[in-house]
């Protein structure tokens, strides 16, 4: 589904991604972990071109998205993204947040999108918040709505950029629960996270990034049970 070849990214002289090769299959749930500054968020943001790669290619569903001729807007409609800071639109109600993109991109009528939004709100456990504004909601609630907003586009893959890092501890669970349900429904997911419990129980594969490279990857059992890379061992000893 997503094929990454020799992906590099540098900000000025600073090399953040030092050549990444990665293949993500449909239905996989890939957790990306690593110390801060290891390039994991940059890697994720390259996948939908929020960051323009410096070199290498990324193909998504057979289309080279790094080709300047590719209509990236069209491809992004099939890649949902959830941000650390939620990034809900504060001037719009929850309902308008969710239905904005499907309506403006003429994928659905206003009524269809509204219906879909209410259905999604039910799914994330917030059926009575349609008319609320983001600032009236807790962080956990906002993130669940951000997930609903991304799902409203019926994406083929969901990218999560540290979705629980900005939350108060007691709200982490409710967001992870929604993500777990999404995973159980078969969604393809790439999740940059510090939640080792989530990586262990939900991911089908875990990547460890260090200094702009994927230093190790394995299924969660092997990954956490018998890590090989010394940097990974050190990292796990600190976070577990």
């Amino acid at each position, binding site marked *: 589904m997503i094929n990454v070849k020799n992906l590099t990214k540098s900000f000025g002289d600073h090399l953040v991604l030092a050549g990444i090769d990665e293949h993500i299959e449909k239905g996989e749930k890939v957790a990306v972990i690593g110390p801060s500054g290891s390039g994991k968020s940059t890697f994720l943001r390259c996948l939908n071109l929020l960051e323009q790669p410096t070199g290498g290619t990324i193909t998504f569903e057979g289309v080279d998205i790094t080709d300047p001729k590719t209509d990236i807007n069209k491809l992004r409609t099939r890649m949902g993204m959830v*941000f650390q800071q939620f990034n809900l639109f504060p001037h719009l109600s929850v309902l308008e947040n969710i239905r904005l*993109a499907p309506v403006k*991109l003429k994928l659905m009528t206003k009524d269809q999108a509204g219906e879909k939004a209410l259905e999604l709100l039910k799914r994330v456990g917030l059926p009575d918040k349609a008319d609320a504004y983001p600032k009236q909601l807790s962080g956990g609630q906002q993130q669940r709505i951000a997930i609903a907003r991304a799902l409203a586009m019926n994406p083929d893959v969901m990218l999560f950029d540290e979705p629980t890092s900005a939350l108060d501890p007691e709200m982490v669970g409710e967001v992870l629960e929604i993500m777990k349900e999404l995973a159980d429904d078969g969604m393809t997911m790439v999740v940059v996270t510090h939640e080792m419990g989530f990586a262990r129980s939900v991911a089908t594969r875990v990547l460890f990034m260090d200094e702009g490279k994927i230093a190790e990857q394995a299924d969660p059992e092997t990954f956490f049970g018998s890590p090989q890379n010394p940097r990974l061992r050190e990292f796990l000893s600190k976070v577990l």
Partner: protein
Amino acid sequence: MDWFLDQLWQTFVEDNRWRYFASGIAATLEVTVLALILGTIIGVLVAVVRSAHDSQRGNKKGLGHVVLGVLDWLCKLYLTVIRGTPSTVQLLIMWFIVFQWVDSDYMLLVAALSFGINSGAYVAEIVRSGIMSVDQGQSEAGRSLGLNYAQTMQYIVVPQAIKNILPALVNELITLLKETSVCGFIGLTDLTKGAMIVQSRTYSPVVPYLAIAVLYLVMVLAISSLLGLLERRLRASDKR
């Protein structure tokens, strides 16, 4: 007291001189409103071009970037020239040089054009500061949903920017209204020119000039309270 009543009579009632004030207010408001509309359109367009150019840094590829570079250069030239010269001089150049062959029936339109172009430069920088004040995550969220740059600006960034800059825009509108008082330089009978004509008939400056000071003040207060109402409505989404 008798003197004052006599002055009032001479200024407003005799020869129906109140008409100079009435038609003066109409001319002043017409120039202001037309200039406001034009200035807002120019201002938003220039601000979007400048912001688009700023956000392109580090991605200097393709024809699009060259076009944007030229547009940005033109915008900067416009801002420099317009903000660097007095609006009165611009008005004189507009009427006596650029539109010297135009019939005096169109004087009001030329004045509105001149003030609109002038105001646009100030509005542009206000709007640009507003666009910069909106968190980067907002446009990233919009783009990640598949909206293009223009749609993201239109539905997500600019509405929030406008809310942030409304007080500064009200300020600019008040300045604009008061600056139109130099319209008399090209012979347009606005409120100030009307008072000057009345003074030339009554040979007494006190009542006409104090009267228009009060009239300008009333217009400014009306604008402020009207826009204050709008501001409160826009802030509805901030309530917790």
